């Protein structure tokens, strides 16, 4: 195709004029309108859209919070209280933002779980998966720095503990920590740079999410059967089928979110963070926010500081190489009877890690965290590679439509019953 105007199919003359010069309408129609999507998604496939919505909610509420927040050790706590008391609907904006962080992690953990269970990380979606892990890392950094901003006791001591982890790195560790702090302890320069980065990183996340979605639209979505669509009989146009199915999930998600915000806004938080930060008083138990607890448990499972830091980093890093650790050609665990059971145990193991992460570092909790940490890594490093070689998978269905519709689907080989897939395209 040479230079010149885009061949637009839009009928409205104004929109066509735009679309000929910048084919955004054509693009949206292609990527979100007729985009061929496997017909057999279950509700686990809602969570990508939910994460997108959640990101937008966080950015929107965050912008308004930043208008009223003061990033200074002497004023931060009071400025948050002023938001809660004197800013119009400030309490709503802040509680949505605060619980939005928890909702974001709930949604993303389920999204990741979905990917693990249905093998969404396997070829050809390795890069799509890796971009997802990058988003997860960015989210963790953003959430951590956001939690520091109210400058309560847990803000201060959480920041102190977590930034101190970098000091475990040989030779350059202490220097890195000094640069993170902007001084020799967590103080005003730390708060200032965390605020700056907390505002910046969400937009970096938006960028990586764009790449994540772009990569998705090259390979297409995985599905509960883990087999590729073989033709139009296996897919449906994204709109209206999945726009409406996602909408159902969005309303349920908003209801859970609202229940938290309006009826238990501090349920997932820690009371100590309503005590202004005091560098002279150390809380008895310094615990991170609930969504970091599994990794915190892994960190504390090893008595050695550097070892703990490496294991914690490894717990995320292992996800980057997961596509090559799992050597099975079968994606969905539905067809892998042994791995499926072990993965369910791994899921329970993850919950146990969360629970034990909130406990003090004493017996029997240390032992439990050590066992759970071993299993966490064994699943990725030993079980998955071994299962790929030894497990006998169940027989895969011939096609999505055959599996969904039964034997009828195979008859005739023509277009699908009811021509469901074609219908919305006629409208478009």
């Amino acid at each position, binding site marked *: 195709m040479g230079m010149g105007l885009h061949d637009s199919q839009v009928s409205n003359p104004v929109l066509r004029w735009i679309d000929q010069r910048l084919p955004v309408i054509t693009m949206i129609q292609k990527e979100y309108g007729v985009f061929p999507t496997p017909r057999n998604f279950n509700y686990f496939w809602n969570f990508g859209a939910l994460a997108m919505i959640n990101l937008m909610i966080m950015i929107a509420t965050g912008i308004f919070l930043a208008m009223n927040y003061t990033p200074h050790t002497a004023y931060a706590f009071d400025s948050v209280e002023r938001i809660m008391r004197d800013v119009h609907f400030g309490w709503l904006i802040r509680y949505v933002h605060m619980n939005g962080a928890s909702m974001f992690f709930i949604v993303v953990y389920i999204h990741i779980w979905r990917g693990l269970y249905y093998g969404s990380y396997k070829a050809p979606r390795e890069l799509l998966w890796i971009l997802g892990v990058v988003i997860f890392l960015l989210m963790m950094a953003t959430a951590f720095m956001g939690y520091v901003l109210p400058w309560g006791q847990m803000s201060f001591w959480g920041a102190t503990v977590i930034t101190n982890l970098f000091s475990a790195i040989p030779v350059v560790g202490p220097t890195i920590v000094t640069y993170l702090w902007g001084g020799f302890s967590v103080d005003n320069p730390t708060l200032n740079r965390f605020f700056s980065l907390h505002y910046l990183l969400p937009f970096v996340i938006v960028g990586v999410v764009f790449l994540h979605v772009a990569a998705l639209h090259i390979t297409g979505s995985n599905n509960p059967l883990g087999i590729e669509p073989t033709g139009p009989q296996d897919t449906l146009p994204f709109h209206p089928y999945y726009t409406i199915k996602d909408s159902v999930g969005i309303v349920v998600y908003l209801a859970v979110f*609202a229940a938290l915000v309006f009826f238990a806004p501090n349920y997932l938080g820690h*009371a100590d963070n309503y005590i202004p930060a005091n560098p002279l008083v150390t809380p008895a138990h310094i615990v991170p926010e609930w969504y970091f607890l599994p990794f915190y448990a892994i960190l504390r499972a090893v008595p050695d500081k550097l070892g703990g830091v490496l294991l914690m980093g490894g717990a995320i890093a292992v996800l980057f190489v997961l596509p090559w650790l799992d050597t099975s050609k079968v994606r969905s665990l539905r067809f892998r009877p042994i791995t499926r059971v072990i993965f369910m145990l791994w899921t329970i193991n993850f919950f146990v890690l969360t629970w034990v992460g909130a406990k003090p570092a004493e017996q029997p909790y240390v032992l439990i965290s050590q066992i759970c940490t071993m299993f966490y890594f064994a699943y990725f490093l030993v079980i998955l590679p071994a299962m790929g070689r030894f497990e006998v998978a169940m027989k895969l269905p011939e096609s999505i439509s055959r599996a969904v519709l039964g034997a009828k689907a195979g008859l005739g080989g023509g277009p699908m019953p009811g021509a469901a897939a074609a*219908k919305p395209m006629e409208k478009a």
Partner: protein
Amino acid sequence: MRLLKAFALSAAIFASAPALAAGSAPPPPNAHFSFNSIFGTVDRASAQRGFQVYKEVCAVCHAMRQLSYRNLLDLGLTEAQVREIAATFTVTDGPNDEGQMFERPGRVSDRFRRPFPNEQAARAANNGAYPPDLSVITKARKDGANYLHALLTGYVDPPAGVTVMDGMHYNPWFPGNQIAMANVLNDGQVEYADGTKATVDQMSRDVTTFLAWAAEPEMETRRAMGVKVLIFLTILGGLVYAVKRKVWADVKA
């Protein structure tokens, strides 16, 4: 003497910081506060009495720096009453056009007057302990309202074998069981205008109610809005699900 004072000071700091205290306290019993249930509201009469307790007893040592006198309007006091309350306090203002600080009667827009100008002054006057600011105290403690009520009504003589440090007081609900604050509530401590009998339990309930309101002044608005939002989402959810069924009807085999 100096050494003794230093010891008392460090001991008091140690014990007044609940997070630092080594021991743990049992979870407080449920005092069945009206605002603690999911759709609960704040008992206005109780909270107003609680403000009186705060003003006459707690405010001697504890600041509430996030609150202004105007906030009392939300408790059901009239503007005239709030004006009158504010005017009973003397506030340092300035500098004026001559560059001098001056004193004037409080206005409704003023913050609650703080008993001490700074933390050092507060510690100096309290045997080294720092009486915490009470603005968000029920949010700053686990199960805050029940904890406060248990603490305020929980002063007892130390059990046999327990030695209480100099200047400290025994309270089983306080982490570590030794608290710098003395028992301040005694029957008839305040005289309620509405004729309510000022028992220790009553005053403790009232002041806890007041403090719970002060920590979350948005609580009632929040819950009322939450009910509307959830009703809306339920209806919307039903509609969206019906549309989903309709759209997907022709896909099923």
